[in-house]
């Protein structure tokens, strides 16, 4: 298929995933090289680490250049390709196949790359935000002995993530899909000496695998139905199957995969635990990129979801419920990273509401703005935690550096971080003219518009009319927006305002993060401020209107139209909706201002949470419930029932059976051959009679 991009710089798009992979290999080698030479393989572990540590300074310097270097190169290439694409009207996706992967009979799966408006946008976000986070990590992880290993994993993650968004078929996407799961496992459990960290990594991988099971089944369904796994071919063939049970099944199984990867109910349980990893990891993987893979998948598979309105309604409903659920839990979290984790789950819910209602552009828009402001929040939290660690190290105390109760008044010590985080908080709360307002408002307005009139509203999910569901989702969205504003402001206030609770001695050591950490945070904050310009609504034409909408039109436009029809709200209604959204945000900030300005005790002296507050703090005790209902019975089944029960039984049957057989045979033998001649004579007589009878009684 000839496209306008043939022969342009887009031909080098294969470098995009390969550059970070190369970085990963180099960094990985550098991580292991000090231990490779013979000196490293004997002696105690302490001796070995000492011997290796001497070489660390050199290798760390190389890693500090290679890791962000490949990211910046990839970003540069992505920008160049983007610029080329902007100059060209690309109607068909640019697909390049590099090699056969699994050609088996009629199944043909290739290593292919697909460049279109959606994938280049994701690539820009991944490489851009990723590069900034790499720079931040140079400062954050400076003193860590696993420096090179960290960057190897981080580069590898980006390589897999780019494979995910640039793949030309569901199979190649799946390679990236599981690959990022692997890197997530490695990075969450980065400080693996603590069992809790290793457990968190393991939990993430396993819960993701449950989603992967859904993805695999969806792939089988797709192939069984249309005979190809390529996006272009499959979507064309599936277009005619709108409304069928097959399409619905495919969509539902794909959504199971998304629920696992993007932490939606009920597979979100790994995300809060994932905060055990280094904070930049949380920023990159669990805020900006990996968890958004599910949203990307639905946008990519939009023809499928557009043809299965029930599935789309389910997606939106689950998204809305997840958003509300997570927001309630975030209200009562004391660990700053946990607040942000649940906030991420909640915002992901918004994105799923968007793609579920067919507003794919809105979902991607929120994905991008969320990447900006959530990265700021996580990196800022990272700066704060870094500062508190440093302070406690200074006084040799071992308090929790992540607990909000141990913070307070940090605006005095970390003004730049404070400014950035304030901007990000306002963005996530949805205050205009920050980016979060535009993206969140677009989602809510789109939902409302579709609730008023659209093919989606006319569909039903389990008997409930789509219209009612969409209105309910809108309401949930508004309530969640209110709660979002409350808990985010609470976090900001507790950390940065009021009296400092870290301790008098520690305050001497509290200071702003180094430039290499603050720089990326500020850049991202500016992006969070200005990101709204990507897709201004017609209501507020302060710049180019609907830029993102136009950009993504060739990819998702048709599917969006199938679900939304000609849904268009009147200007009056739109203004009211915008007003409600802004009101919810402002009200939330005000409520938080009132509730949380009172002074707190630091963590050591704080009372334990009681009652409903305690339930929220424990996230509705879901983890304990899952442990009791799923994990323990499964282990019990595997251990007591199967291993010690059934397997022993099966083995015993065969072994005992063999024993009984041979013992019976020997018993018969013993009885027959006991030397009693009389018995022999009997047998002789009996045998002779039998023979006579056989011969005569024919």
């Amino acid at each position, binding site marked *: 298929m000839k496209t306008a991009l043939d022969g342009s710089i887009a031909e080098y798009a294969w470098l995009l995933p390969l550059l970070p992979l190369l970085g990963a290999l180099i960094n990985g080698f550098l991580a292991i090289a000090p231990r490779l030479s013979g000196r490293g393989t004997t002696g105690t572990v302490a001796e070995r680490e000492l011997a290796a540590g001497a070489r660390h300074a050199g290798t760390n310097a190389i890693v500090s250049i290679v890791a962000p270097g490949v990211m910046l190169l990839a970003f540069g290439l992505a920008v160049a390709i983007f610029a080329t694409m902007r100059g060209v009207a690309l109607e068909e996706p640019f697909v390049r196949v590099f090699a056969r992967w699994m050609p088996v009979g009629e199944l043909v799966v290739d290593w292919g790359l697909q460049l279109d408006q959606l994938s280049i946008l994701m690539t820009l976000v991944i490489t851009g935000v990723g590069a900034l986070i790499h720079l931040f990590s140079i400062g954050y992880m400076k003193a860590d002995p696993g420096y090179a290993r960290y960057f190897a994993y981080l580069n590898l993650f980006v390589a897999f993530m780019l494979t995910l968004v640039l793949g030309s078929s569901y199979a190649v996407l799946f390679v990236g899909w599981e690959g990022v799961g692997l890197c997530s496992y490695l990075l969450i459990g980065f400080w693996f000496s603590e069992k809790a960290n290793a457990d968190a990594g393991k939990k993430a991988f396993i819960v993701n695998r449950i989603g992967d099971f859904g993805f695999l089944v969806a792939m089988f369904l797709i192939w069984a139905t249309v005979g190809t796994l390529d996006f272009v071919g499959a979507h064309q063939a599936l277009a005619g199957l709108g409304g069928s049970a097959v399409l619905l099944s495919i969509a539902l199984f794909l959504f199971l995969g998304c629920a696992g990867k993007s932490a939606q109910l009920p597979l979100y349980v790994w995300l809060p635990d994932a905060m055990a990893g280094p904070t930049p990891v949380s920023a990159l993987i669990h805020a900006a990129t990996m968890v958004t893979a599910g949203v990307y998948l639905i946008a990519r598979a939009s023809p499928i979801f557009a043809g299965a309105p029930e599935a789309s309604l389910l997606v939106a409903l689950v998204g809305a419920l997840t958003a509300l659920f997570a927001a309630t839990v975030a209200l009562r979290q004391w660990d700053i990273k946990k607040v942000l984790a649940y906030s991420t789950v909640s915002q992901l819910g918004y994105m799923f509401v968007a793609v579920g209602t067919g507003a794919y552009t809105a979902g991607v828009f929120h994905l991008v703005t969320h990447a900006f402001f959530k990265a700021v929040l996580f990196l800022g939290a990272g700066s704060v935690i870094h500062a508190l660690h440093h302070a406690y190290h200074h006084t040799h105390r071992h308090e929790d550096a992540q607990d909000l109760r141990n913070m307070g008044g940090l605006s005095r010590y970390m003004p730049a971080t404070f400014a950035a985080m304030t901007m990000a908080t306002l963005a996530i709360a949805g205050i205009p003219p920050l980016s979060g307002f535009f993206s969140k408002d677009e989602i809510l307005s789109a939902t409302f518009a579709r609730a008023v009139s659209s093919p989606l509203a006319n569909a039903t999910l389990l008997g409930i009319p789509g219209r009612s569901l969409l209105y309910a989702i809108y309401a949930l969205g508004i309530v969640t927006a209110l709660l979002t504003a409350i808990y985010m402001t609470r976090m900001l206030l507790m950390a940065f305002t009021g009296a400092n609770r870290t301790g008098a001695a520690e305050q001497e050591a509290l200071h702003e993060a180094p430039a290499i950490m603050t720089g990326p945070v500020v850049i991202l904050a500016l992006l969070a401020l200005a990101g709204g310009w990507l897709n201004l609504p017609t209501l507020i034409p302060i710049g180019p209107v609907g830029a993102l909408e136009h950009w993504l039109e060739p990819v998702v436009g048709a599917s969006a139209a199938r679900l939304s029809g000609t849904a268009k709200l009147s200007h009056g209604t739109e203004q009211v909706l915008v007003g409600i959204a802004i009101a919810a945000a402002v009200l939330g900030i005000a409520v938080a201002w009132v509730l949380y300005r009172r002074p707190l005790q630091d963590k050591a002296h704080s009372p334990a949470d009681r009652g409903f507050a305690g339930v929220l703090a424990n996230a509705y005790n879901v983890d304990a419930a899952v442990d009791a209902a799923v994990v323990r019975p499964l282990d019990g089944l595997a251990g007591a029932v199967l291993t010690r029960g059934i397997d022993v039984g099966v083995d015993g049957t065969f072994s005992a059976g063999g024993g009984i057989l041979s013992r019976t045979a020997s018993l018969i*033998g013993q009885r027959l*051959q*006991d*030397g*009693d*001649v*009389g018995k*022999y*004579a*009997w047998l002789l*007589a009996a045998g002779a009679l039998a023979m006579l009878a056989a011969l005569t009684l024919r």
Partner: protein
Amino acid sequence: MIAEALAVSAVLFCIGVVGVLTRRNAIIVFMCAELMLNAVNLSFVALAKMHGVTGHVFVVMVMTIAAAEAAVGLAIVISVFRHFGSVDLGSVRMLRG
């Protein structure tokens, strides 16, 4: 006439078989074996009336072989008695496998 003779022969044969199988004294077993042989002789003689002199020839052969067999067999019994001290067949289990 022949039928009655054959019937007597069959009865004698069965008595002989039962005796061989159930009696424990070796001498008695031999006597029963002789009884079996004589029963067969009787049926040969009876059938010779129908089929000619071949039956009588067989009777003479059987008698001769019975005599030889009795001689050898009784010699074995005497040998067994010398070794085991009794002729009770239940206590001779040298053929035990």
